[in-house]
C-alpha cells in the first residue's frame, strides 16, 4: 500500500512542479518549478527502491532485508544533474535580468516581439 501511495505522491509533486513552470511569470520561479519536477523524479526513484521492511543499504551483520541500492545511486546522480542544470538556469536568469531589467516573462516577450 505504501508503494502505491508514494507513487501517487511522486506524480502529484511532478504535476505541481509542471504547473509552476507553466503558469508562473517570474523566471526564478520557473527555475524553482524545474527543480521541484526533478525532485519528484528522485521521490519516484526512492519509491521504486522500497522493499517491505527493508532498511538503508548500509551493511551490518544483524540486518537481512535491505532496500534496493541501485535507485538510490540513480537518485544521487539525478540530484547532481538537476543541481547542475539549475545552476546554469540561475546564471541565465541573472544574465536575462541584466539585459531586460525585468524577470517578468510578459515584459521580456513584449520587448522582444
Amino acid at each position, binding site marked *: 500500500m505504501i508503494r502505491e501511495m508514494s507513487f501517487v505522491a511522486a506524480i502529484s509533486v511532478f504535476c505541481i512542479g*509542471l504547473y509552476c*513552470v*507553466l*503558469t508562473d511569470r517570474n523566471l526564478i520561479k520557473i527555475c524553482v518549478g524545474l527543480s521541484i519536477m526533478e525532485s519528484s523524479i528522485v521521490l519516484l526513484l526512492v519509491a521504486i527502491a522500497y522493499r517491505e521492511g527493508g532498511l538503508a543499504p548500509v551493511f551490518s551483520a544483524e540486518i537481512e532485508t535491505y532496500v534496493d541500492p541501485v535507485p538510490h545511486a540513480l537518485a544521487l546522480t539525478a540530484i547532481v544533474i538537476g543541481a547542475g542544470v539549475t545552476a546554469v538556469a540561475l546564471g541565465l536568469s541573472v544574465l536575462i535580468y541584466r539585459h531586460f531589467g525585468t524577470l517578468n*516573462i*510578459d515584459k521580456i*516577450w*513584449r520587448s*522582444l*516581439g
Partner: protein
Amino acid sequence: MIRPSFALPQGLEGILLAVFIVMGVLSLVYAFSAYGYGFSRRGLLLNTALLVHILGGITALLAADCISLLVGWELLAFSGFFIIVGSTEIRPGPRFAYEYIAFQIIAAASLFTGIVIHYSATQSLALTVVSPASTPAGVFILFAVALKTAAMPLHFWLVDSYPAAHFSVSPLLSVYGTKVGVYTAARLLSVPVLPYLGAFMALTGVLWALRQHSARKLLSYHIISQVGYMLIGVGLAGEAGINAGIFHAVNHIIYKALLFMVIGAVIYRTGEEDLRRLGGLGRYMPLTFLFGVIASASIAGLPFFSGYTSKALLKSASGPGVLYWIMTIVSAGTGLSFIKLIYAVFLRPRPRNERIAEAPAPMLAVMAGLALCSVLTGVFPSRIPFLPEYRYYTADRMLSAVLPLAAASLMWLFFGRKLLLRDHSPGFQFSGLLSRLQGKGRLLLKSLVRETLYSVTSFQVYILVALTAWAATAVLFILRM
C-alpha cells in the same frame, strides 16, 4: 549505389545531339558579341551558366538511364535560372526567373516520382518505355513532359521568362529547354493522348501568338506551337512518327534560333522590341532582313525550306485525319503571324531621323550559317543520314503546303494591318499572381506565426503543446497497444 551512365544515341537522335552541340557553339558566339559584360565578374557567372546549360542539354541526350536524364533536366533548370537572372538588369528579370525555376523543378520532381515508380515496377533504371501508360509512373512522366514542353495550360513560364532574359541569351535558351522534353517523351512515353495534346498546343500556340505585339513573346508562343508539332510526331506510335518528330525538332532548333538572332540584332541596333514602334528597317539592315525572310519561310513551311520537309514527313506519318487538318490550319496561322512580323519590323514605312547601322559582323556570320543550313536541308533533304526514303517534292504535297500560305497572305492583305497591329491588353500575367500569392502568403503566415503565436504567448504555451502531444500519443498507444 546509383551511378549515372551515358551512351551515344544512335540514328536521328545522334543528329539531334550534333545539332545541340553546333547550335550551342553558334549561340555562344552570338551571345558574347551581343551582351556587353565581356569577362567582368558578372560576365564570368553568366558564361559559366551558359556553358552549364549546354552541358545539361548534352547530358540529357547522352543519358543511358533515368538518373542521368534527371541530371540533365536539373542542370538545364538551374543554369536556365541563372542565365535569366544574371543576364538582365531590369527589374522583372528575377521575378520571372523565380517562375521559370519553380515550373522546371516541379517538372523534375514529378519526373523523379515517375522514375521511382517506374523503377520499382521494372527493377531497372534503363530508359525503357513505360509499358502500361495508365500506371502512376506514366501519369507523373506525362505531367513532367507537359510542364517541360510548356503544354498550353502550363506554358506561362516559357512565355514570361524567355522574353525577360537579355536578347543575347534568348537563342541559346530556345535551343535546349523544350527539345529535351520532346526527347524524354520519345524515349519514355507511348501515350495515345500525346499527339492530340500536341495538336491542341500547336493550335492554341498560334492563336495566342497572333495577339502578341512584343516580337520575342510572339516567337515564344511559336516555340509552343512548333513543339506541339513535335509531340504530334513523337506521340504517333511507330518509327516513322518518332523520326518525323525528331527531324522537326532538328529543323526547328535551327530556324527558331535564327529568328531570335534576327530579332536580337534588331533590338541590339534600335533597343526597341514592340512591333507597333518598329518599322522601316529593311533599308538599314538588308542582310538581317534577308535572314529574317529565310527563317520565316522555313517556319511557315514554304517548299524548298527546312520547315517544309519535316512538316511533310509529319503529315505523311499522321496520315489523313483530324491531325492532318489541324496541321494545315496551324501552318496557315504561322504564315499569317510571320508575315505580320516581317512587315511590322522591316517593310512598314517609318521615317527615321538617325541612320541605323547593320548588325555587327560576328552576328551576321552566325545568322548566315544558320540561314544556309535551313535552305540546304530544304533543298536536299535526302542528304541527311538516317532519314527514311521519302519523295518530298511531289505535286500534291507541295500544293498542300502552299495553299494554307496563300490563304494566309490573302487574309493579311484584306484585314491584316488593321486587326493585328492594334495594341491589345497585356493579357493574364501569371507571374504577377505568383508574387502576389507569395506576398499574401507571407503576410498571412507572418501574422499567424510571428505576431499571434510568438510574441503574445510565451514559450510556456509551447511547453504546454509539447505536454499535450506527449499525453495524447501516450493515450493513443495505451489504447491501441
